[in-house]
Structures are given as C-alpha cells and as structure tokens.
C-alpha cells in the first residue's frame, strides 16, 4: 500500500513533468480516436443519406464490368415505367435520371463544380418524398432552358436566380437559366447538383427522351423490398439490375469508401507517428524520473521495499499517466473529429455534428492503446528502478551518475545498422523488383532500429564535431553546452531519436519525390516531342466538344494525336488472362512520345491493324517475343488476335507498363458507340507557329474550364505541383513529429535543468550571467536538435537514394537530392532547438542562486 501511495504522491508531485509525456499519449490517442469517430460518423451519415434517398426497389441497366468510358450513361428504356407500375406490390414508380459526366460553367466560363474531387451531377427533380432536396427559393425548372442549383454551390460560387449557366454534357452543350435554389435536407455529400425537369434531363443529359437511368419503385403497404424485388424480377426477367434499398445504399457506400479509406489511412499514419515518437518521450521521461529519484528509491529499498515493489510503483505511475493521457486523448479525438467535419464543410461536404457517432469501442480502443503504450514504454526504466541498490540512499547524490553507452549496445547497434545498410545496398543491386522492395523495407527498418540503438554512441561523436564546428565560438558557454549534451549520451540519443524518425521519413520521401519530378521532367525533355498536351485535371475523359475545339485549331497545327485507354481482357499464349487496358493511339504518336523499343518496331504497332506492343517485364513474365499472338477480348466489343510487333523498355515513367495498339485496331474491334473518349490529346504546332498555336488552342478551350492545354513548360509545372500536393501530407506528418519531438527536447532540458540546479547555482555564483546561463541551455538544446537532424537527414538520404536506385528500372532514372529542403530542415531543426529551450532556459536563468547552492 505504501508503495502505491508513494507512486501516487510521486505522480502528483511531478505532474509538471508528466504533462509533456501526457501530451504525447494524448496526441496518439487523439489521432486514433479522432480517426475512428470521424470515419464512423461519415459511415453513419452516408448510410443514412443513401438509405433515405434510395428507392425501395431500383431498376437500372445491367452493370458491365470495366465498361469503355465513352462518356455515356447506361440507360434503360422509359417504357419500363409503365410496365413497372403494373407489377404487383408497386405503389408508385418514378423516372430517375442522373449523369455525373457533365461540367457546368458560369457566364465567365468558370467551372462551378466542386474542387474537392466530388462530382458535378445533373438530375431530374424527383416528386417522391425520398428526394434529398427541398426548394429553398425560386421555383422548379420547367422546360429545356431552366435549372435549379443546389444552395451550397450557389452560395460558394455566387450564382443567383436569373443567372445563366452553361452545361457541357456529352450529347451537347446547352444553356439554362437558374430558376430556383434547392438545399439538402440532410447532409450534402459535397457534390454540385443541377436539377432539371424530367424531359430536359432525359433529352439533354442522355440524348433521348425514350431513355432513363433508373426506374424507382415505392413498395405498397405490407410489401417488403425483397418481395417487391422478386416480383420485379419475375415480371421483367433478368435483363436489368434490380436492387433493393439496402443494396443500392451499400453500392453507393462502396463507391465512396475508397475516398474515405485514403483519409483513414492518412490519419492513422499520423497516429502511428505520434505513437512512435511518443514512446521515446515516455521512455525518456521515466528514465529521468527514475534517475532523479535514485536516492529515494534506495531509501525505499533500504527500509525493506522489494525490487518488485519498486518496479511496480513506477509502472503504477505509468498506468496513471496512460489513463489520464488517454482520457484526455479520447476527448481531444472527438474534438479532432468535429474539427475535421468542419474542415470537410469548408471543402463543401456538410456534416452535421448531431450525427456524431461514437461507438463504445472507440474510447475502449483509445484507453487500451494509451495505457499499453505507456506501460510498455515505462517498462525498461521501471526495471532499472528495481535494480537500484539500497546503497544508493547513502551515496552523495550530487549529479546522478552519467549514463554510459555500453559496449554491448554499441556492438549490437552497429550489427543491426550494418545488416540494414547491406539491405539498402542489396535493394539497389537486386534485379527482381519484388525482392528488392523487401530488401529496401528491411533495410529501412533495420537502419532505423540500428540508429536508435547506437544513438548514444553517435551522440558523443556528432556532438563533439558540432562543438568543434560551431560551439567554440561561444567560448566557455559553448564548451559547457557541449559537455552537458555529452554527459548523458543515452538521454541525448533518445531525445534526438524522436526528431530523427520524423526527419528521416520526410527527407527520404523528399528525395524520392524530387527524383520523381526530375526524372519525369528529364523524360519529358528527352522523349516527348509533342508541343501541347490537352487533358483534364480531374482525370475525366475529353468530351466530344473538347475534341472538336482542339481539331478546330488544326490550321496552326502540324498534327493531333488522340490517346485512349481501352478496357479489355488479355490472354497470353500460355493461357494466362488478365483484365487491363490497352493504349490506343494514332500513328503520329511516334513523333509525340519517343518510346524505346527493346525489340520490334513501334511504328508497326501505331500504323497497322491488330498489332500490339507489350512492356519488357510483361514479356519476360509470360515468355513472349515479337511475333507471338495475344488474344484480346475488347469489353463490349470483339475478341481479336493481336500480334506482338514491339516490346517496350520498362525504364520509363510516362509509358510504364503501357500496351499500345493503333486507333485503327481499336476502331476495328469496338462498335462506334462503345469507343472510349480520348483521355488526352497531344498536338504539335506547325514550324514557327508554336506561339500562335498555343494561343488558338487556349482560346478554343476557354469554354471548357475542366480541360487544360499545356505546353511542355507548363506541363512540367503541373507535374511538380502534383508531387507537391503529395508532399503536403508528408509535411503534415513532419509537423506532427516535430511537435512531439519538441516536447521531448523540452522534457529533457527541463529535467536536466532541475538536475543541475546546484551546478547552475555554482556558475551563477562565480559570475555567469543569466543571459549566459540561458544561452548555455539553448546551445545544448540546439546541439541535441541538430544531432537529431543530422541522423534523420542522413538516414532519410540513404533511404531515398536506395529507393531511387530501386525504382531506376521503373523509370526513376534521375536522382535529385533536394538540397534546399534539406538545408531548410537543418536550419529548422536549430530553430526547433531554440524553441524547445525557451522555457527551460528561462527557468535556469531565473533560478535563485542561494537555493541552487543549497539544494542537495
């Protein structure tokens, strides 16, 4: 009991120190719980939305897997409506028309669609009570020239009743006047909705009033959805997809799922980073608490407490910390989820906090995670506490014995690092991509662990070098800072490790991504001959109007190349089949993109019918050579035998893994209405007319803001921007890792300052000024941070270089080390050190000299 009482008292006596570790626990738990609450809430919200808005039974066209993207919406004949009404158990039937293959622009030709990736959807107004919309102002649209717009879009894009919008649909572009504004009765999933009357929707979105996308049925009273589905299937046969309400809702949720999965994993990555970094913080805090309390523990032991009791008393403190940290973390997690929902609101998706879903399991998971992590992290220090001998009570504590970095530890660390390093080297030399990837993963993991283990050893080397290079300028103050950073290498190592992990991840990813940009730009320079690239930023295919607008500029153009992705099932002579795409291009593609062939001739592929090229890796895996035949079943088209006329090199980023066929081959095997729209178009200007051609293309495409024409320079910029966006997530992770790492440095310094109270008193007594004392602490902090930065950047560079070498075969040919970023990170780390030292340095400077001298 007494031991428990001691732990409780200790815990509360050191609550200041516990706060920092507590924040680490809090952050980890908050991210995990926040993720859970947020995704549960999303699931709940959308389940409700889809269930509320789905009809009891829906009839739609049979879904074709991997249908060609020809811009058309799969439809069923309108005649089904009357047939359906006669089916037994049907109370009412409605036409449901919708198409997300549209773009809506305002009078300035600005896209009013969402920028978040959510679609713009054109629909007919539903008279059923399941309509998720209600008119909030104006009136419903009537006739071909009118439409209603959803309120969120209207507010965001300043569209008012009476404004004219232009709808770019596949059957043709048309103008409408806004007659009303409708708002969602529940959650707006973030889409832009344009609502027409039913005939307009049919005619303008589908191209025919004889078609509809769905027929929605309401079940009569007493008829279950499943019964009704049976009746419908019995009446109409199996030519159509018939789905009950829950099936429709499930399908819709699946479609949305992948988007949320990404968010979920990104957030869990944050949680993981804070857990890992947090562990270091906790280990360090408890180590220091135990060291500080050595005398006290010795006394406990001397008066008869067993090792086990001492050990347990430290663990009890850890449990307390874990519980308090987790509880606060759970609360913060819920706050985080609410914050994210608000953020989603900014992006156009309005989630109501009244739908906040907190499952019972969420706080449980948070609590278990927080407590388990804390106790595990505190285990080693607790064991060390148990080992304190009763003699410690008698010794003059002075400063606690300086931690040694043991030889065993050094040897073990070097071994692990060595094996990890070998893994990285093997990853660069191994030819088999899969095996090389495993080497790389192993190498990254082992070098990281190795560096953590030999951290203390490296600390004594690196800190000395840093001291030699920089600290000497600061004279005695610098020397003392250096010695202080060195006096407990294990502590310095552990503190720096927290920073190291974050920086290693970031610099590794930075190397890979800048190498990506550099390689792509390099390849663009070397192999792309086309002057202009036309494509949509959202990855939508090009509508026929767009294609025409490009063709309209042909007076200034030497040639235009269409690039289409065709869905097909490919069967090798060996009998292996796989679903995939073939890239159909025009003969001029030869000049636009110079793809390297290792065998055969690509000109044959582009210029002849029923020939194909395959990439080197695919050819090797299936033992294919030029002249072999592939059986290709074009989805919604014919099955043809294509002769391999060329094998392309794999070391390309632009055409990696592409199987080319000619446009003619595509046309021969697909009926006209099933041919996919062009994904991108490439064009080259007539000699000397590059500028005029660019201007004309831009003018022609002005009406289609969803599509951009870019010359090579602009295209490079886009590539860089895209990679830059990916990097933002990485920087987010970095930010979090740094926050936790700062806590760690603050923690270490604060404890060091307390430990060195007498020393600080002494140096103040013999004439060191407050400023100098503070500078000493700050320099120590900067040295520790820079040490962490050097280790992290070093590791990250090694990882990044190994990854680049590994992906060289896949086209990542240019190694680009982002020195500027690395320099920023390095300088940033020094700033981190300064920031972390603010409070500890202030306290050191303010310390009362007399009290400090008298402390024992």
């Amino acid at each position, binding site marked *: 009991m007494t031991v428990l009482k001691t732990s409780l008292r200790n815990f509360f006596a050191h609550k200041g120190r516990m706060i920092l570790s507590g924040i680490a626990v809090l952050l980890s738990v908050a991210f995990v719980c926040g993720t859970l609450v947020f995704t549960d809430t999303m699931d709940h919200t959308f389940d409700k939305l889809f269930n509320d808005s789905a009809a009891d039974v829906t009839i739609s066209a049979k879904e074709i897997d991997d249908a060609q993207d020809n811009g058309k919406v799969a439809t069923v004949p309108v005649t089904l409506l009357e047939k359906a009404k006669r089916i037994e158990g049907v109370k009412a039937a409605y036409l449901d028309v919708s198409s997300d293959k549209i773009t809506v622009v305002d009078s300035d030709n600005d896209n009013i669609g969402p920028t978040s990736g959510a679609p713009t959807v054109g629909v007919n107004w539903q008279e059923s009570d399941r309509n998720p919309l209600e008119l909030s102002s104006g009136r419903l649209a009537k006739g071909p020239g009118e439409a209603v717009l959803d309120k969120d879009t209207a507010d965001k894009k300043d569209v008012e009743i009476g404004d004219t919008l232009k709808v770019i649909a596949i059957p043709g572009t048309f103008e409408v006047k806004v007659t009303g504004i409708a708002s969602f009765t529940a959650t707006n999933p973030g889409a832009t909705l344009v609502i027409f009357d039913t005939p307009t929707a049919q005619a303008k979105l589908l191209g025919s009033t004889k078609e509809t996308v769905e027929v929605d049925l309401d079940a009569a009273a007493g008829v279950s959805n499943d019964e009704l589905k049976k009746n419908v299937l019995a009446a109409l046969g199996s030519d159509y997809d018939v789905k009950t309400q829950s099936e429709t809702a499930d399908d819709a949720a699946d479609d949305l799922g992948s988007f949320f999965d990404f968010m979920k994993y990104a957030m869990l990555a944050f949680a993981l980073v804070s857990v890992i970094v947090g562990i270091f913080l906790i280990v360090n805090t408890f180590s220091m608490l135990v060291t500080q309390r050595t005398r006290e523990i010795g006394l406990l032991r001397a008066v008869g407490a067993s090792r086990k009791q001492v050990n347990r008393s430290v663990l009890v403190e850890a449990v307390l910390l874990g519980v308090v940290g987790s509880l606060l973390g759970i609360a913060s997690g819920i706050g985080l989820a609410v914050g994210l929902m608000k953020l989603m609101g900014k992006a156009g998706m309005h989630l109501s906090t009244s739908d906040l879903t907190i499952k019972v399991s969420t706080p449980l998971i948070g609590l278990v995670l927080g407590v388990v992590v804390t106790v595990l992290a505190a285990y080693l220090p607790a064991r060390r506490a148990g080992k304190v001998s009763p003699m410690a009570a008698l010794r003059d504590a002075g400063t606690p014995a300086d931690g040694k970095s043991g030889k065993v530890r050094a040897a073990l660390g070097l071994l692990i690092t060595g094996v990890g390093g070998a893994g990285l080297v093997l990853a660069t030399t191994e030819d088999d991509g899969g095996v090389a990837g495993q080497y790389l993963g192993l190498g990254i993991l082992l070098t990281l662990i190795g560096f953590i283990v030999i951290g203390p050893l490296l600390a004594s080397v690196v800190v000395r070098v840093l001291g030699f290079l920089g600290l000497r300028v600061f*004279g005695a103050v610098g020397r003392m800072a250096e*010695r202080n950073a060195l006096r407990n290498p294990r502590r310095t190592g552990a503190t720096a490790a927290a920073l190291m992990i974050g920086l290693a991840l970031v610099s590794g990813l930075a190397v890979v991504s800048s190498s990506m940009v550099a390689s792509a730009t390099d390849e663009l320079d070397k192999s792309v001959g086309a002057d202009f690239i036309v494509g949509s930023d959202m990855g939508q295919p090009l509508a026929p109007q767009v294609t025409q607008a490009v063709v309209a500029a042909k007076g200034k153009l030497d040639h235009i190349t269409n690039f289409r992705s065709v869905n097909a099932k490919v069967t090798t002579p060996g009998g292996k089949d796989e679903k995939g795409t073939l890239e159909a291009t025009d003969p001029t593609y030869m000049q636009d993109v110079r793809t390297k062939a290792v065998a055969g001739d690509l000109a044959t592929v582009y210029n002849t019918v029923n020939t194909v090229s395959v990439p080197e890796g695919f050819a090797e895996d299936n033992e294919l050579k030029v002249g072999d035949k592939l059986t290709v079943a074009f989805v919604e088209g014919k099955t043809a035998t294509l002769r391999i006329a060329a094998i392309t090199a794999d070391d390309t980023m632009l055409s990696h893994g592409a199987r080319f066929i000619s446009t003619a081959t595509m046309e021969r095997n697909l009926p006209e209405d099933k041919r996919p729209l062009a994904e991108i178009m490439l064009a080259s200007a007539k000699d000397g007319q590059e500028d005029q051609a660019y201007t004309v293309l831009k003018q022609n495409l002005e009406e289609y803001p969803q599509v951009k024409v870019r010359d090579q320079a602009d295209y490079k910029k886009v590539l860089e921007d895209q990679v830059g966006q990916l990097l933002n997530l990485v920087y987010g992770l970095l930010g979090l890792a740094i926050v936790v790492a700062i806590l760690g440095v603050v923690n270490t310094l604060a404890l060091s300052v307390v430990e060195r109270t007498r020393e600080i008193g*002494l140096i103040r*007594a013999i*004439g060191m000024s407050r400023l100098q004392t503070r500078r000493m602490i700050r320099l120590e902090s900067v040295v520790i941070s820079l040490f962490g930065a050097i280790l992290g950047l070093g590791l990250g560079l090694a990882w990044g270089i190994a990854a680049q070498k590994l992906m060289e075969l896949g086209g990542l040919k240019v190694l680009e080390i982002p020195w500027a970023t690395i320099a920023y990170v390095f300088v940033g780390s020094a700033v981190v050190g300064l920031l972390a030292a603010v409070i500890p340095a202030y306290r050191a400077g303010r310390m009362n*000299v*007399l*009290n400090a001298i*008298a402390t024992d």
Partner: protein
Amino acid sequence: MTTVVATAQTEGSGGHTAVAARTRQVTKAYGSGETRVVALDNVDVDIARGRFTAIMGPSGSGKSTLMHCLAGLDSVTEGRIWIGESEITKLNDRKLTRLRRDKIGFIFQAFNLLPTLSAAENITLPMDIAGRKPDREWLDRVVETVGLGGRLKHRPNQLSGGQQQRVAVARALAARPEIIFGDEPTGNLDSRAGAEILGFLRRSVDELGQTIVMVTHDPVAASYADRVLFLADGRIVDEMHNPTAEAVLERMLRFTASETAQPGHPSTSQFGSGRTA
C-alpha cells in the same frame, strides 16, 4: 544594538583603502508580520584588506547569511554594503553577476566544481565566462601553491575531496579577486586535508596579499584567521584578533551555555535546504 563595531584602521574615499568590504546597518529578514524572522539585525562590519577574517557563530546565528549578503549572492532588507568602493546593495542582477565574476572568489563547502569540466577548466572558468585571457604566470603560481600540478586534466570525480577543494581554492585565487569568500570550505574534509586547505588560504593572504572572509563553525579553522567575528542572533556580539583554537572554542562554549538556548532563528542554509528536489 550591535555591541562591537568592527572598524577598520583607516577610512577614506577614493584610492586604495584598507577596507575590502563593509556593511552599514544591514538587516536581513524573512517573511513579515507574525512570521517575520530576522537573520541579520543592524550589522556593521568592516573587512580589512589583505587580512584573513573568520565569521563564527552557532547554527542560526546568521553567519552564512552575512557572507551571502557580503558576496552579493543574497539581497538585504535594509542597510548598505560596499565591496571596495562600490556599493552593491543598489546593483541589479546583471551588475551583481559581473561583480561576482570579476571581483569575488568563492569556495563552497561542497560541490564547488562543474563535473563536466577538467580541473584546469574549472580553475579558469570565471575568466572564460568573462572572455578574459588568464594570466599564465599567475595561474602557474597559483596551481603550484595549491600543489595541483599533475592533476589539471582530471575531472572532479577523479579527484579526492581535498583535491577538489584545492581546485576550488585555485579557482578563487586565479582571477585575483578583491575578496574571496569561503563558506565552510573545510566542512567536508578530514582534519589533515582541511589543514592543508587552510594553510593555502593563510599563505595566499601572507604571500599574495589576498583578502579572505571565511564562515566556519570549527575553532581550529578559525584559528588560521587574523580576526574572528562572532555572530549570535543576527548580531555581531564579539570579535577576537589573532585567535587561537582554544580561545575561540572557549568563546563558542559560552554561546552554547547562554545565547543559543533560544530557538527560532533558523540559519539561512537551512532555509535553502528546506526544499528538496
């Protein structure tokens, strides 16, 4: 109230006076109202230059407080203190720190040295902090005087207690301060090592002309001084010139018999150590 005002032989303004430090009506009190505790009560003291002064008194007499105030480590409640010609009771922390660095040397009872610095680095620390170059010749002489020649590269934890105190003495002497304060410098040492340290202090006064003020409760240590001041209840109650250990002991025993029978005057050092880390 102070019965004996220990005055210096000469007084005057400007130039080199014979007074290294002095206090006038110095009062140091802790707390207020009911809980007010007076550690120093109207103390007037002159410390003669080039002499070795010991301050003695029973526990709680205020001897450490007096030294801390004289040395600019602690502030006074009332009264004025001068080190040489400069009054230190009006100085802010920055100027006090500089004063301590440039004009005062310290020898504490224990924990005199920074564990991360070698003996040599500890000795030159005040000058290093000030960014001054130590006077090599002087340094060598000091090191020789305290007999540390072969141990300059050692860290404090590689030195015995006596050696550590010798380093502390060397550090106090190295910067040639106007005055050195010792707070029970031999309190942690056995009598042989203590005698050595006291011998060095004595020699530095005799041979180097150093001014030393030492707080002690050991009559033998006090007998090395030129003059002993006796404190009781925050007042100077007696003084003794050219003391012998026996005479000092005899004087101290009189305190034990009478004046210290009353409790309620905790010593400053206990004040400080009342809180533990």
